[in-house]
């Protein structure tokens, strides 16, 4: 009985941990572009920007999130907590733009 109770607790803990973690999305930075340029996620989801370019970049939505410099072959992750639309850009390269929609 004790073993069963422990198993039930373990299962429920696993389930709640999975539910709380949210999904993970990846945005690749390559060829001086965010790919995909537009991404829709749910609150609690995490977004990882991976820099596969030859030069450092940032993912910056003014007053919402700012990765700072993401080095070549490095990544930066952000958990979306508030619903809304968030256009963002690379502060180093004004031509690079993207948008995150959080539902």
């Amino acid at each position: 009985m004790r073993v069963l109770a422990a198993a039930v607790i373990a299962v429920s803990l696993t389930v709640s941990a999975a539910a709380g973690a949210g999904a993970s999305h990846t945005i690749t930075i390559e060829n001086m572009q965010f790919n995909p340029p537009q991404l829709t996620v749910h609150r609690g989801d995490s977004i990882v920007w991976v820099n596969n370019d030859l030069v450092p970049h940032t993912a910056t939505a003014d007053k919402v999130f700012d990765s700072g410099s993401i080095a070549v072959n490095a990544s930066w992750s952000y958990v979306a907590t508030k619903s809304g639309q968030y256009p963002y850009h690379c502060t180093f390269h004004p031509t690079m733009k993207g948008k995150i929609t959080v539902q």
Partner: protein
Amino acid sequence: MKTIATCITAALVALSAAVAWSAAPKEGPEGLTDAQIAAIVVAANQADIDAGKVAESKTQNKDVKAFAQQMVADHTSVNKAATELAQKLKLTPEPNATSEKLQKGGEENVAKLKTLQAGKPFDAYYMNHEVYYHKAVLEELDKRLIPGAQNAELKALLVKARPTFEAHLAHAQQVQKDVEKSG
């Protein structure tokens, strides 16, 4: 005796020519070897790093300054990737007419930038040259370097670097316009 000596000399000349020919690195359809392309890439990046360093210390315009700092940072990154690849491929960059022209052009540009008065004349000259330079490098990449690269990794690096130069050109054209409009 003289005939034999002549024959030996002729044979040696022919032999050394043959050795030189067979040892010569393979040229691509554009008449450039990978070692020459590596030298062109390094010279092109270095020219823009040098100009950017003068501009970031001399300009008083914040957009020009940000652009110049970006050129120094990005071209340093691209050069690092190119140098690392050249080492991996055991490719010693070989100076050639194009790399020397780029180097000379870069030195003349820096010399001119140093003589210009800080303010609009300086900013306009620097930005005009940056627009011209990025257009010229893109043309060189498209017409000679990318088609000419023999090694697949070198070709891939050039293809990967191209969008950086393209974004720089768009950035340069924007700042050029802003400088023209400024008082």
